[in-house]
Every structure is written in structure tokens, then in C-alpha cells.
């Protein structure tokens, strides 16, 4: 009889990025290879805990022999591939993508993009103030989430997290076409009336603040959201025995948000309603701040 071992796969692939050889495990993406080479790449619709959907095109790179630029987040690294990440063509394309996204959408809370917009000199305002906007009220339908579709870039991350990448609830999807396309519940019913189970995994992956925890929204509205002063402590959820890792975001000695590390083997960044919102009992009900 033989002992069944834990399966191991470690075939390596070597490619060239910006003239230097990079070796990564088979199955890695070009983006993984860029990261391994210490090259920072802008991303928006990509998340390490979701299947790439190739929606935003901000991570494109030039591949030798390819007519078009390729999305690095989904293109698999292949032996002898030649990749260039900082050519004029790449820089120009990334700048245009950021400008198109920013011209019709409120990116004020898309923190991960602000540095890249400066880097590539993107000026969304040059498309004029009449660039198309949704211009609708923030949807506040319950005590846990808000939805502000003026901030939505249709990156599909929330749909993926709600659907077959994690939660399998399928409460939201893209409805409509073209300029009318937007994320919606079935028949646009309110979230409490939809299939939503309030795991918050859509909020966890949203890169622009279009879906937001109510706690964060309220603090932002009160001009009191101060991420630079927040501490983040990793601990374990107090409910069932699965052992989900929580990151407690604390401001003024109060928990203001709960996330989970995307690279943890237990959660892959995803939580349930109890882990995400079940911390309220820790907090004194009396407001501590004067």
C-alpha cells in the first residue's frame, strides 16, 4: 500500500519582461510574473480571489507577436514570451482607459487608481462636464450597505463575488446594455427584497466605493472617515468553528469596518453576514466621541 501525499505541482515557466528573464510557476499570469519581477501594474477589475473578467483593460501590456495589447491579469505566462510593460503604446492605452473611466464615473474614492492617474497624466476632465453620468440618488435600503452607482465602473467584481467565484447567491448581475448597463438586483427590487444574504463580499471587492458598508458611508458623510489614522488588526471570527480571519479596521478605538485577507487559505477574503457585521456587540452602544 502507498501513502497518498498532498499533491504538489511545481513546473516552472521562464519568460522575458522588459528585457529581463522571469521564472514563475506554470499557471501563473503575466500579471503574477510582473509582480514577481517587482513591476507594479495598475488593475481595477482584477482581484486575486476572483476569476479575471477582462472588463477594464487598465492592466494591458505589449506582447511580442500579438497584434493587440493583452490584459496581463488573465493572460497566462508562457515559455519564451516577450512582454513589455512601459512602452509608449502601453502608457497611452492605460492613460486613455483611466480617462474614459474617470470621465463618466465618480472615481473620488477609487484610491488605488489615483496614483496611476497621476503617473500616466490622465485628465478625465478634458472630456467636458457633460460626459454621461448616471446621476441617481445613493440607494440606502438597509442598515448594512449603500449603493452609489455614479461610482460604478462596471468592473463585474461584485457580480463575480456574489456569483460563482465565491458566494453562489447570484443576487446581482449586469442589466441593460450600452450606456444603460448597470449592476442591479432582479427586476431592480430593493436589496432586502432580493436574494441578497448580506455577506458583504461584493463590498469587499468593490474598487471604487460604489457598494459600501453603511458604517463607512456614514463616517464619510460626516467627513469623519480617516483611514490614515485607522489600525488594522488580524484576528479570528467569534462565531462558528470555520476559523475565518478577520481584519478589524479601528478608528478612535472603535471597529469601523471588517475585511478578510484575500490570500488566506480559509476565507480567500470572503466572509458571511456574522463575520462581516456581527461585531457590534463589542462596541459600547454609547457614542464615545464628544
Amino acid at each position: 500500500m502507498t501513502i497518498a501525499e498532498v499533491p504538489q505541482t511545481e513546473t516552472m515557466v521562464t519568460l522575458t519582461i522588459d528585457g529581463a528573464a522571469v521564472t514563475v510557476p506554470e499557471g501563473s499570469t503575466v500579471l503574477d510574473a510582473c509582480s514577481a519581477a517587482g513591476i507594479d501594474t495598475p488593475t481595477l477589475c482584477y482581484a486575486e480571489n476572483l476569476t479575471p473578467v477582462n472588463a477594464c483593460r487598465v492592466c494591458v501590456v505589449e506582447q511580442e507577436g500579438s497584434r493587440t495589447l493583452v490584459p496581463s491579469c488573465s493572460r497566462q505566462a508562457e515559455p519564451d514570451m516577450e512582454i513589455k510593460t512601459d512602452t509608449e503604446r502601453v502608457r497611452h492605452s492605460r492613460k486613455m482607459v483611466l480617462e474614459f473611466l474617470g470621465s463618466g464615473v465618480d472615481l473620488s474614492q477609487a484610491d488605488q487608481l489615483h496614483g496611476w492617474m497621476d503617473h500616466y497624466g490622465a485628465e478625465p476632465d478634458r472630456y467636458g462636464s457633460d460626459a454621461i453620468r448616471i446621476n441617481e440618488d445613493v440607494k440606502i435600503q438597509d442598515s448594512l450597505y449603500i449603493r452609489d452607482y455614479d461610482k460604478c465602473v462596471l468592473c463585474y467584481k461584485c457580480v463575480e463575488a456574489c456569483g460563482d467565484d465565491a458566494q453562489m447567491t447570484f443576487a446581482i448581475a449586469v442589466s441593460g446594455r450600452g450606456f444603460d448597463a448597470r449592476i442591479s438586483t432582479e427586476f431592480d427590487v430593493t436589496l432586502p427584497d432580493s436574494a441578497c444574504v448580506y455577506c458583504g463580499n461584493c463590498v469587499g471587492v468593490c474598487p471604487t466605493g460604489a457598494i459600501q458598508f453603511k458604517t463607512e458611508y456614514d463616517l464619510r458623510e460626516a467627513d469623519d472617515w480617516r483611514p490614515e489614522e485607522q489600525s488594522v488588526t488580524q484576528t479570528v471570527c467569534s462565531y462558528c468553528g470555520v476559523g475565518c480571519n478577520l481584519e478589524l479596521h479601528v478608528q478612535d478605538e472603535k471597529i469601523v469596518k471588517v475585511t478578510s485577507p484575500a490570500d488566506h487559505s480559509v476565507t480567500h477574503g470572503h466572509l458571511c453576514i456574522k463575520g462581516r457585521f456581527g461585531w457590534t456587540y463589542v462596541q459600547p452602544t454609547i457614542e464615545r466621541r464628544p
Partner: protein
Amino acid sequence: MFGAGGGTVSYKEIEETDVILLWGSNAREAHPIFFHHLMQGLQNGARMYAVDPRRTSSAKFADLWLGLELGSDVALANTVANYIVNNDLHNKAFIEHSTSGFDAYVDSLAEYTLERGEELTGVPAAAIAEMARTYATAETAQILWTLGITEHHNAVDNVLALCNLALLTGHVGRWGSGLVPLRGQNNVQGGGDMGALPNKLPGFQNVSDPDHRAKFEAVYGRPIPPEEGLHLTLMFEAMERGEITAAYVIGENPADSEADIAHARKLLRGLDLLVVQDIFLTRTAELADVVLPASVGWAECEGTVTSSERRVQRVRAAVPPPGLARHDQDILRDLAHAMGYVEWGNPSSEDLWEELRSLSPMHGGMTYARLESESGLQWPCPDLDHPGSPFLHGWLWEDDLGGRAGAPFSPVVAQGPKEELTEEFPLRLTTGRALDSYNTGVQSGSMESPIRYGNALDMNPADADRLQLSDGETVKVTSPRGTVDMPIRIQPDIPVGLTFTTFHFPELVDTNLLTNDAWDKRSGTAEFKAAAIRVDKLVGAAS
């Protein structure tokens, strides 16, 4: 099982397994993030059978739902086993090499033919046969269970019946295959690992073993009583006999959580001294002579907890405790000092963990630094070079079992629920959890939830029709032990004759006034899953 109490597999394995038997578990709601791993397994092609009297939200993900009669789990497992043996689908090499007691086990299965199985369980014979064949012939397969197996008067028989199936087919001790009791609390595994069991010292070392005791006595500098202690249910019986007159309750709310709660509260009130250490003034704390306010373990303290896959992970203080609340270990230290045990000193959480590492071989390699850098470690992890153990019982597959006896088959006999249905109490009541709430609501009660429906009695439309009840109507629910008023919720997913409720809101609906405290002498767990009830219209109520 087979010596150490813990699930035999890692979560990752269910993503790669071929067949899943989800038995008495609604993991979709009770263990949602584990269910993410399970659903990845389904996407990767696993076939799932859900065994549950209710067609739960988990069962809706299954290829086949086996809606057995409540409490007929042993009958179903034995029928599956009988089918496997009769069709020559058992793993003969594994049985011969790695198990013992096979012949007696086979003899015990004789009466559980498919026909008899269908009669006892209400599950069609074809469905039983399909599950048996698929499980037995799979390359890898897992059986998962939770309280649907263990909250019965014959809980241990239920668990043994499932372990027998794994031994019969060799579905244990290999990557992808195993036996998985999902844990209901964030550190119920760790509590057992740390020796919070009446017969164990930390690391599942035996109180009855003089060598094990000597090891601890050398460090503690005190003799350790050789007698095994009492588990919770036996403690209540000892209170009843007047043998226990004082209780120190830490982080438990038995005045809400015990079955036949009126009786349990009476016993707690009758104590000479009740000390309660908790983060809230729970119903139990309200009965106490002394209340010691504790801080929140996972957000205000340093320490570790252990999960269902035996992963030890760090918890950390993120916020300061309110008012006079203090870390449990500081309260215990001060008590020890007050009792004259000054050698306790003033250890930090890490100091205590280092002592544990020196005494419990299965934790030997788990330093705080490693727990931090390796995102937790799975026991056993005996030394600093050991990577931790993704699955248990690999030794069953080694050519040389190292002098160990094989894993034993345990013949078990089917018994129904203790409380039979009568003309007076014709409906079956079972209890469980809802996605957005937790146990007696001490933690989850203050959480706002848009999907909360409160405590309602789920009932099949046919039963509601017969009793002339409408959805949402408040009714009187009576068991041989008590009566509560609660609304009904008409649910097509619950079979005729069965009702279901949670116990998350004891201040609104005292569900455990109804539940049966008949319990398993071996596990100490009461039969929360099966009571007999009657449902009556409220007299004079406008419906």
C-alpha cells in the same frame, strides 16, 4: 475519532474530492465560508448527497436530497453499509490491513436490507442504493456532519455509524477523503485540545494515565486528581442530587441553552454559589451571586483559537475592553493568587502557550512566530521543522502499522428519537440555526440584519391547512415539558409532520422550554433535535 477528537481533513480537500455526503448539516447557513470550499468542490465535479429531514438551503446544492425520518440516521448508515457489502463494493484490502472487527460488523448489518432501510428511514431504496454505490466506488469521498448527528440521545451511535462507512470503503486517512465534524463554535476544537474535557489533559492526554499526570504535575507543582470529572449534563444531574452546590460558569449561557430549560434554571437557582464570568449580563449571569465582567476574547485579548480543520490561529486585541472588563486569564490568575497559588505568577498569553507547547506533543512545533508567519498551523505539529498536518490517520495506509491495532468497526443498532409521537403530541419538533444568528443570541442579538425573520415555527403547508393556520399566525406550541407562543412560517421545504425552529431569541421565544433533555450518556449532549409537540390556535386570537 480513532483516539484524537478532530476532523480528519483540510478545507482545501473538499475542493478536490469526488463525492460528498453532507449528513445532518446545514453548512450553507451554519458554516458559510466552509460551504464556499464545498461549492468549489461541486464546481470541480463532485457529486453531493444531502441527508437531512429538512430540505435545507444546503440540500438545494445537492445532486440528491435524502429526506430521512428524523433520528433514523443509524438505520440509513447501516442500510448503506449492508448494500455496499452485499454488492461487494467494500475495500477488502484496507479492511484486512487497517481495521478490526469486520465480521461482527457485517453480522450486525443483516437486518438492514434496502427494503427494511426504506421502511425505517422513509428514503426510497433506489436513493439509498445510489448513494451507497457512488460513495463506495468513488476515488475520494468525505462524510461531513454537525449537530444533526450529535444532538440526539444516541449521538455517539450516529457518529460511529458514519465512521464505519469510512472504514468500510477506505475513505479516511488519504488526501481528499475523510470524516468531517464541522465545529459550531470558534474555539470548541481548541477547548477540547486544551483539556477542557472531563477526562483529558491538554493534547488529549488521559487524566487516568499516571504517566500523563506526572508530566503535568512536574510543571504545575501540584498533584492532579486521577478521577475523571463530569461533563455539563452530568453536572446538572449532580446538582439535582445535591452533590454539586457551587458552579463557576465562564462564557457559557446554560440558563438559555440547555434543553428542558425550566428544569435547568431551577437547578442553577438552587446552587449555594453561582459565579458567572461573561462579557454580558446573560440570563445565567442574572442568576449569579457574583458576576465577573470579562473582555471579548477575539477582539480585546491576545491568544489562540483552533478551527474545524485543526488549524491553530492567533486572536489579537484590536480595541480596549470597556469599563472594568478584564481578560479571562487575568481574572483566573487573580483568583489563583487569592487562593494562595502564587506560583501561577503573571504569565502573558504567549508564556501560557509556551508552557502548553512543552506539555502537549501535538502542539510542540507551534510557536507564536510560526502561527503568525504561516497563517496558523494544523495539529499535530510536534516540532519546529514539522509543517503541520493537513489530514489525520495517514498511518492507516502505511505498510507497517507500527504495532498499532487497526481502526475498529463499531456495530450499532438503530433507535428512533427518545420521545415518541402520541395523539396528544403528534408533531415532531427539531431545532437549528439561521444564517444571520448564532446560538442563544448573546453575540448576534444586537446585530442589525435585513434578512432576519425572528423565531418562527416552520411548518409544511399541508399541516398548516389541516390545523387551519395561516402564515405568520401566532400559535401555542406545547411539548410534554412546556408551552410557548410563536408565529408559524409556512415552508414547503419541510416535510409533513415535521416542524422546525431556532432558539436565537430566548427573550422572545423560549424554545428550550420545549426541547427534550434526554441525552447520550457517552457524549453528554441532549436531544435538541427531536421533541414531540402539539400546535394549537391561540384561544380568542384574531387570525
